[in-house]
């Protein structure tokens, strides 16, 4: 009896602790959501002037904010696709073939992962300046591919470590050439690793501030727009867009998750 009681208090403490951690994680989000309904119109938008839905309407008149969001999505999609393509090929090749200098490539791969983002940011800025590539959408995409490629490779590799070479051999024995084998046999097996890597690349890209800050030129991404607006106080329409984005992602997760659970039961 007392043992059970003890276990219950232990459980209670555990739940209380986790709740506190979640509160910590969600507190700023609550601030954002509440401020998106603030009727204030004067900078720095800190005083509460009543409840309004206005900002959700006005948001769609703020062309600069919306186009920055569009830029973020374009950059994320393009850089994820590029990183996934060259990353998947690279991981596969490094696993399958023998060649000199593998260790060097490995070493290079770890750099963008461990090095502080600011170092990658300033070194890419220096490079782009020196070879005179105009800063903008292009340099943003190049930079984003650079920091996401290793994550794709690591994820694909994790999948490859359990990969059975014999199915490829079987396919080749049946007369398929190397290219067909890669697309028909290898790729489907690697798919979960590729998808995981791509998801990570996408997430990193849409939230990147530091590297984009150095290589953006005249192209503003959504995080950079936020950075700009922080200087004078974040306007409620920025909060409103953030709330919508959050809501969107939660809906997507809930949809995919519940779908997943249903499939599993069936």
């Amino acid at each position, binding site marked *: 009896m007392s043992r059970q009681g003890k276990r219950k208090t232990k459980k209670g403490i555990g739940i209380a602790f986790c709740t506190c951690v979640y509160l910590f994680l969600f507190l700023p989000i609550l601030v954002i959501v509440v401020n998106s309904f603030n009727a204030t119109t*004067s900078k720095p938008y*800190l005083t509460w002037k009543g409840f309004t839905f206005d900002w959700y309407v006005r948001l769609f008149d703020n062309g600069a904010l919306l186009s920055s969001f569009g830029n973020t999505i374009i950059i994320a999609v393009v850089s994820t696709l590029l990183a996934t393509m060259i990353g998947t090929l690279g991981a596969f090749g490094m696993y399958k073939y023998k060649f000199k200098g593998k260790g060097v490539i490995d070493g290079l791969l770890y750099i963008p992962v461990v090095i502080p983002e600011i170092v990658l940011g300033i070194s890419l800025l220096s490079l782009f*300046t020196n070879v005179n590539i105009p800063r903008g959408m292009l340099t943003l995409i190049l930079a984003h591919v650079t920091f996401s490629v290793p994550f794709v490779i690591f994820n694909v590799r994790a999948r490859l470590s359990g990969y059975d070479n014999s199915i490829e051999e079987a396919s080749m024995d049946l007369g398929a050439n190397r290219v067909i084998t890669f697309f028909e046999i290898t790729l489907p097996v690697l*798919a979960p690793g590729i*998808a995981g890597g791509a*998801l990570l690349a996408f997430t990193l890209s849409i939230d990147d501030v530091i590297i984009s800050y150095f290589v953006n030129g005249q192209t503003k991404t959504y995080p950079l727009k936020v950075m*700009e607006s922080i*200087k*004078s106080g974040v306007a409620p329409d920025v909060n409103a867009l953030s709330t919508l984005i959050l809501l969107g992602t939660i809906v997507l*997760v809930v949809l995919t998750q519940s779908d997943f659970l249903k499939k599993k039961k069936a």
Partner: protein
Amino acid sequence: MKKRILSVLLAGCMAAALLAGCGGKSSSAENGELNLFIWTEYVPDAVIEKFEKDYGIKVNVTTFSSNEDMLAKVKSESEGTYDIVQPSDYMVESMAAQGLLEELDQSALTNLDNIGSQYLNADYDPGNVYSVPYQGGVAAIGVNTSKITDDITSYDDLFKSDYKNSLVVLDDYRATIGMVERSMGLSVNETDASKLAEVKDKLLSLKDNIKVYDSDSPKSQLISGECTLAYCWSAEIALAMEDNPDVKIVYPSEGAFKFIDNWAIAKGAKNYDNAMKFINFMCDPEVAGMVMEEFPYLNCNQTAIEANADYASNEAKNVPAEVFEAGERDKVLDNDTIAIYDNMWTELKQ
């Protein structure tokens, strides 16, 4: 599972991008484009929109938050990236010397006579060959009189030990060190190493009083009550006074750190004619009137000031002529002196 999340995410994103694309306004571009490179929070959106509408020119805006930042970008981007830049006084001189500015077509500046004669033909650009003044100001003292009842009259007063942890200063080493120099009766462009050693000691004695360094929106610190004293641009204090009537402005008895920002055309500008149209447009009194409503710096447009009695009588906005006259501008310093300034600033900020 990850794959499914990914595909749904991608679909959602495509939809969002489409939406964002639709939301963006399609501006008329029948008369070409104009690329502005300007200070953050300095030119009202409404003014840009008016220019786009009146002239049928599409304007692209990029912003910077320090002269040096702007200079670095102008030099590192390929020529023709920016048409219009907005350098401060000393930076006009420096950029012109480096051949980074185009000469202005004086015949296109039909509105120039609206600009106060005291701002024209300045020592940093004699004859206004490269630049037209836009607006300026001085670094003044903002006081929240409900919390601070002492009579503050000078930069030197900010060093009193009573004001521990209550001051917001500009996060700009030239401006803040310049304030210390003025408080000691020195020039803001002091280069003498032994004098700079004294400046450093005095600067460090300010550390306990500084609560936050903020160049972007020091007014927020005054409005929210985070700080009760501010060393910042006059216009920031003017805006804080509108939100918090307890705030008042003090112009330092030592003579203030001052600046004038200007319009100029970057070397190799692709849209030179449009750029001239824009500069002339900005000298229009009606446009200047719109600017002073939103960003109440010391406007250089005399005609516009005369037309706006509220602005003209507000001493935080329309900085009194004698205050501006007594102020001092910063100049380009040599690298060794810059290193001394940078070191003392680093020491202050640790």
